[in-house]
């Protein structure tokens, strides 16, 4: 019975979604980190196709691009005054926070979506951070920690909300530029594109890219992880060697 309901719901989804289809493409699915990497940006192209039965919409299309980086286990701590000193007392755990999160649109997100839609569909930084499953609920005590996480990550340039990053080239073709700061960690990045018209979600499209170390950086990372003893001994030997060389170079007598 449950299965049948799910099937029906799925069919209904497909039926409504089939009016418009969204085709997206990334400029790069494998971003390489080499020794002079200082961050980069990736271009995303999207085309909206409408089938013959669908009438053209009065208002134009809007696209929201959400990019989520590798998951991290974070602990946010709050300093409080205890007597004369400030100590970390309260803390809140975020077991599944993305290391990088950006929400890119062509207009301010409040103009193209309704409050309820944003909350329900987790669109926009605030909605994602405030989602009930983002951290454990503590009857409001978790609220300042969510806000602190958002504020600190925004300061570091790792959580981004940009309402000018999506450009419509024609009413049905758009381009978005996904900024990747140098501190965004290597790993898998999921890209979710949501197509809207008149504050209603028409369809969604998913793609992903990976940020990987190459060449020397990759080999160093692998050596440190897979042959830790050799790596540690080699670093120690190098340190001793450099100390000895310096002694020889600067010997005056």
């Amino acid at each position, binding site marked *: 019975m449950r299965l049948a309901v799910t099937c029906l719901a799925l069919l209904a989804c497909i039926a409504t979604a089939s009016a418009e289809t969204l085709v997206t493409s990334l400029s790069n699915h494998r971003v390489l980190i080499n*020794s*002079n*990497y*200082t*961050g980069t940006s990736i271009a995303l192209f999207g085309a909206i196709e409408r089938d013959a039965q669908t009438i053209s919409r009065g208002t134009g299309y809007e696209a929201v691009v959400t990019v989520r980086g*590798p*998951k*991290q*286990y*974070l*602990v*946010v*701590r*709050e*300093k*409080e*005054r205890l007597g*004369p*000193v*400030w*100590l*970390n007392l309260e803390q809140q755990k975020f077991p599944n926070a993305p290391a990088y999160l950006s929400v890119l649109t062509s207009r301010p997100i409040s103009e193209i979506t309704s409050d309820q839609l944003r909350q329900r569909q987790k669109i926009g930084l605030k909605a994602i951070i405030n989602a009930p499953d983002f951290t454990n609920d503590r009857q409001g005590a978790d609220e*300042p*920690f969510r806000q*602190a*996480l958002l*504020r*600190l*990550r925004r300061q570091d340039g790792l959580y981004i909300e940009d309402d000018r990053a999506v450009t419509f080239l024609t009413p049905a073709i758009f381009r978005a530029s996904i900024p990747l700061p*140098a*501190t965004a*960690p*290597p*790993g*898998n990045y999921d890209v979710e594109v949501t197509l809207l018209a008149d504050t209603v979600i028409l369809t969604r499209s998913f793609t992903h890219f990976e940020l990987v*170390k190459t060449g020397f*950086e990759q080999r*160093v*990372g692998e050596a*440190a*992880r897979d042959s*830790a*003893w050799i*790596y*540690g*001994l*080699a*670093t*120690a030997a*190098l*340190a*001793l060697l*450099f*100390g*000895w*060389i*310096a*002694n020889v170079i*600067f*010997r005056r007598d």
Partner: protein
Amino acid sequence: MQIYLPIAEMPVSVLLILGMGAAVGFISGLFGIGGGFLMTPLLIFLGIPPAVAVATQSAQIVASSTTSVLNALRRNALDFKLGGVLVAGGFVGSALGVWFFAAARRAGQLDLVIVVSYVTLFTVVGSLMLKESVREFWTKRRGGVIRVKRQAGEHAPYLFWPLRTRFHRSKLYASIIPIVGFALFVGFVGALLGIGGGFIMVPALLYIFRVPTSVVVGTSQFQIVCTTLVSLILHAVANQAVDIVLAMLLIVGGVFGAQFGARAGRNLRAEVFRFLLAILLLAVGLRFALELIVTPNELFSIATQETRT
């Protein structure tokens, strides 16, 4: 010029890191200390993950201390016997420190333990040294007689405990028990705070054991090389947090700085040397005290426990 650090996973400016290595190396060479307590906060300030900062700067300490040890060796200013006793006691102390570190973390009070230890150690050691050197200056100015060290009957009673051993280079004939006990304490604090402990070792050898200034630096550096080598390898194996690119940059800057520091140190009068070290320690202690007392700009902080790629 920027370079990407493969383990810290972020780019840094090459010149900035070289400069930092040189500056800390200079101080390290000047005073015969490791300089870890200066380098670690600087690296964390640049945004390098704390685990990587603590682990990697130990490679620089190994390199700059090796240079100092070799220099001391040529000038015959190293007491291997005393150094060996300090190293042995230091290893046992380190093991105890690592155990206490884990216990404090389980109790959730590691941050507090670390900051309070920093404040206490640096202000106490710094004030004691400052008091001593101010008195020294004062006596000299009034034309008073400078107390000659090592007169008969002037030795502290703990030096007469059993197991008395002669340390020729240090002109020291003392019981081994207080020396090992002291090395144990330095190792314990070093492991707890992630520092070499040279800044406790140097004043203690000077004031408690009355080892000549020329021998103190070499011997302290010898102890630092041995302890830090072990902790560098353990950090690489246990935490995989040693960044070899960052280490090389710090080392290259550090060895040059240490050379000039050591040379400058040789031209310093002993009381000026002690006065400057006292000021440095007090400044660091006060900085940590301020961190504890002053209302912070940002009450919240994020700690990354794990990244799943």
